């Protein structure tokens, strides 16, 4: 037992059931407190001034008039923030993105901020700040940015030899020799795919209340995917002591990766430090679109060869990903995931990180994978057509399995990709007839999933109820899942456990809820913490019964004496042991602090039916099925919820969601009216099928599930649309004008 992470094929009593979530009552009554629902005494209203230019040198900022306005308590510019120019470039970039230092690098880049007694005063003060800009040439599109003549987005960045100056970095993966592979192919298809920039689109805008005291102690209430990560970032950026900054994560109104990065939070704290009062900073929806993390826009050149009998001989992809002004890992993640579903002898991918005058790219649910999957899965679909093979069969034939060397290097352990394909093959959806103007597409996807630093406390109250304190923010029901796991281990009813999310002063460090790690990692520490507590429960029971601890076993939620010599001793329930705890040694608690590793990869296969109106290009998804490996679904409702939500985000991206920039480099659609996330009437029910191929590195077999569902939809929808209209769509989103234009172009030959 103890810290053994290996899969034990145990029978479950709790895990796999669907109890009601512990935070349900608060959330259906409006009592749950989100980022903007909290206030501190004497708080000021913070507001941010943002650049109206896509690229401009900040020659000077005159804040004197704003400072003189009655009710203004602080005006902040980069001059008030630490100068990290000589330090870590990652930190420097993070802070510069929070507030431009010498150059505003995108439309919406923060350049100054105010704290005032009320909203009206704060808005007025922003108008009084005079920024003298020298407008610089800008570039927002990949094709333009990678020209030698393109405006320089990062003036001091060193380009790699022989590459255009706006390519921040390159990376290469693969094995074998694709050229050899292509020679062995009967059919080779080479195509270029484009995807536009999308936003996570969480309904709750970023919001926080920050307070910094003169003695250096500070607190931050904030909607975030990770209080500890925000604490680390804010403390590093502002020169605060980590332990003096207490960060409390509010209920979070959606994040999907966008709330793993700090944006306005360091500004709120810096304003508070300057004003000497708490500052509440809530972004508007427009600010969320202009100033926080969209995903990359991409251009991907793909070449794949197959033999007549459907064996892929080689795959190659050049993956260009925008990262905003700050190079990061986005092209890298595209290049790693592009071919990861398949067993290939010859494969090579190259990632090119392209800097542009757009907001800093942030993580968005399986970051970078959906675009790469769109390109690869589209070409596979076309190849299947060319050789006259069923597209699912082509994938079955080439699917990665245990022992396959992945396209990014390592050999896979037990994975459930084949099982998702088999489930798809047997799914009634695949056999359902299609109507006029309808088409069906299938596509597959993969995400690594990660673990990371995780810490959990399990405290047993004197009445025998259990408080489980986790440090991974609950983004979609994980408190229910963790209660199930604790109840499973302890052998007690679900209702006897209450799971809460800790603030940063109440628990050791936990990495963000990202990379689909929440349930995987915190369930591990919950299991270990429960086992730790059981050891203590056994000791206490031994004391109470006056027998050696080795003679006590924990079964069915109670301590039982084993062996013939103790035949008449009563079993002691958790409640009885808890009640005696004050006299038998004090509080009973279990703990676990680990770096979780071995998060099993999760594969998915999606089936999509669409109907396209050929006259208007309007596309309706009429049926959609998600099949994915969850390892073990702890709370199946919330696993299905991840499948459905991820699929629908992908559907929205596939059909309508995109950042639209004008010639002036300004974002044209920073609102929910023209940035069109799917509405209820756009969609059918989303069928789900949970496959369970246990992760060998989790006692219950759990894999992360949150991200994979957004990987296949771009391709699944594109394949369906392409079949419905008879023209291959290579540009996401497939907005109605793009579909009509593609049809007209095909007609014109």
């Amino acid at each position: 037992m103890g810290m053994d992470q290996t899969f034990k094929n145990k029978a479950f009593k709790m895990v796999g059931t669907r109890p009601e979530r512990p935070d349900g009552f608060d959330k259906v009554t409006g009592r749950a407190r989100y980022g903007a629902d909290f206030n501190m005494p004497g708080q000021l209203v913070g507001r941010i001034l943002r650049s109206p230019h896509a690229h401009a040198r900040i020659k000077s900022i005159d804040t004197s008039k704003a400072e003189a306005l009655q009710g203004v308590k602080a005006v902040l510019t980069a001059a008030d923030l630490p100068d990290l120019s000589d330090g870590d470039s990652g930190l420097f970039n993070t802070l510069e993105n929070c507030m431009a230092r010498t150059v505003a690098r995108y439309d919406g880049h923060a350049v100054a901020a105010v704290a005032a007694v009320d909203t009206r005063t704060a808005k007025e003060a922003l108008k009084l700040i005079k920024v003298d800009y020298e407008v610089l040439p800008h570039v927002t599109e990949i094709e333009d940015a990678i020209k030698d003549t393109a405006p320089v987005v990062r003036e001091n960045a060193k380009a790699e030899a022989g590459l255009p100056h706006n390519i921040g970095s390159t990376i290469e993966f693969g094995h074998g020799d694709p050229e050899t592979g292509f020679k062995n192919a009967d059919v080779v298809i080479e195509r270029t795919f484009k995807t536009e920039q999308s936003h996570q689109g969480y309904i709750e805008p970023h919001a926080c209340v920050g307070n910094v005291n003169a003695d250096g102690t500070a607190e931050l209430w904030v909607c975030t995917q990770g209080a500890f990560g925000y604490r680390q970032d804010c403390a590093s950026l502002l020169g605060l002591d980590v332990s003096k900054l207490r960060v409390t994560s509010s209920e979070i109104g959606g994040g999907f990766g966008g709330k793993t990065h700090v944006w306005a939070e360091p500004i709120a704290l810096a304003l508070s430090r300057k004003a000497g009062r708490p500052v509440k900073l809530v972004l508007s929806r427009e600010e969320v679109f202009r100033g926080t993390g969209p995903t990359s826009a991409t251009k991907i050149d793909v070449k794949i060869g197959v033999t007549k009998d459907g064996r892929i001989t080689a795959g190659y992809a050049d993956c260009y990903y925008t990262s905003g002004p700050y190079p990061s890992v986005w092209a890298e993640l595209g290049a790693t995931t592009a071919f990861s579903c398949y067993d290939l002898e010859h494969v090579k991918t190259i990632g090119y990180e392209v800097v542009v005058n757009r907001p800093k790219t942030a993580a968005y649910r399986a970051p970078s994978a959906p675009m790469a999957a769109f390109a690869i899965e589209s070409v596979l679909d076309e190849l299947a057509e060319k050789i006259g093979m069923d597209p699912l069969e082509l994938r079955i034939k080439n699917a990665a399995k245990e022992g396959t060397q992945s396209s990014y290097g390592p050999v896979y352990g037990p994975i459930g990709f084949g099982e998702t394909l088999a489930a798809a093959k047997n799914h009634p959806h695949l056999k359902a007839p299609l109507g006029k103007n309808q088409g069906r597409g299938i596509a597959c996807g993969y995400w690594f999933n990660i673990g990371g630093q995780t810490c959990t406390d399990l405290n047993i109250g004197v009445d025998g109820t259990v408080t489980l304190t986790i440090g991974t923010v609950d983004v979609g029901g994980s408190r229910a899942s963790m209660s199930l796991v604790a109840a499973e281990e302890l052998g007690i009813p679900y209702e006897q456990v209450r799971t809460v999310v800790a603030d940063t002063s109440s628990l050791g460090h936990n990495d963000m809820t990202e990379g689909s790690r929440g349930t995987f990692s915190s369930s591990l520490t919950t299991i270990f913490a429960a086992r730790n507590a059981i050891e203590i429960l056994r000791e206490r029971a031994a004391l109470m019964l006056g027998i050696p601890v080795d003679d006590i076993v924990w079964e069915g939620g109670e301590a039982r004496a084993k062996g013939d010599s103790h035949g008449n001793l009563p079993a002691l329930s958790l409640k009885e042991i808890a009640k005696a705890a004050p006299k038998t040694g004090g509080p009973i608690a279990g703990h676990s602090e680990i770096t979780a590793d071995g998060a099993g990869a999760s594969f998915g296969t999606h089936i999509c039916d669409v109907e396209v109106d050929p006259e208007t290009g309007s596309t309706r998804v009429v049926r959609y099925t998600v099949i994915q490996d969850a390892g073990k679904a702890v709370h199946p409702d919330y696993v299905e919820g991840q499948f459905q939500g991820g699929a629908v985000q992908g559907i929205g991206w596939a059909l309508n969601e995109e950042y639209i920039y004008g010639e002036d480099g300004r974002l044209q659609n920073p609102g929910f009216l023209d940035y069109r996330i799917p509405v209820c009437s756009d969609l059918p029910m989303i069928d789900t099928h949970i496959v369970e191929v246990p992760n060998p590195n989790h006692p219950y077999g759990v894999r992360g599930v949150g991200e994979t569902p957004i990987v296949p939809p771009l391709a699944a929808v594109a394949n369906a649309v392409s079949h419905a209209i008879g023209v291959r769509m290579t540009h996401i989103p497939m907005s109605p004008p793009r579909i009509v234009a593609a049809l007209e172009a095909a007609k014109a030959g």
Partner: protein
Amino acid sequence: MHYVRPNSIEEAVDLAAKDNAFILAGGSDLLVRMKGDFVDPDLIIDIKAIKGLGDIRETDGGFSIGAAVPCAALGEHAALKSAWPGVVEAANLIGSKQVQGRCTIAGNLCNASPAADSVPALVAADAQAVIIGPSGKRTVAVQSIPTGPGKTSLAAGEIVESIELANRPARSSDAYLRFIPRSEMDIAVVSAAVNLTLDSSGVIETARVALGAVAATVLLVTEAADAIVGTKLDADALDKLAAACSAASKPIADKRGTVEYRKKVAGVLARRAAEIAYKRAGGQ
């Protein structure tokens, strides 16, 4: 900024003549413009307390829809819905259910957006607007009110009091269609309204065809109407209707659609709207 809620239209007219004064009916445009800092009114005149402005009246000549009637109420008015299904369906496509609980057709008209949903239907219906201002009352065709994006022909102090829809002969109906990328909650990329009357044999006697979002103001396309008058809406008439609509469209390219796309879809929607209106009017 001040907020007033006058009880009489005369009082409202006096207030409306002031500088930087804005009329608040449903507020679904005004408050959005305030939020985006596009306007910063000195005075907001809430007209919802004015007697009669919140009513739909059936008159001898037809229907009179008060300027403060929320669009949702149009859909709940059985007689209006039956008499002018196209106008009502247009009004009930604006925004969401929540927005329809607030927005008004008079506000939709006065906001003067080229993409306003109710305006093409009102123009096709030959609706009249009753205007009260410092120099008295006048009645004008609705299409004369918007003069360009965000601009109207209303003089300072003038307020639209009601929208009038006249009774139509038997065998008349109308229909409105718009194209949006989503199924709801969107702004028209292109829209078309058709209002027609048939003779007893099903031949179209009169027709009005209006297009939205393809020019600075709603277009009343007489060539399109001419293409179907005297026909039973056969395939040839429909093609001519569509072609006339595409030809009449002078759209801009913007974030919502290209010029080519809008011209093409204007024809598609007009054809489909005509078919619906024809069927509603009893045509076979």
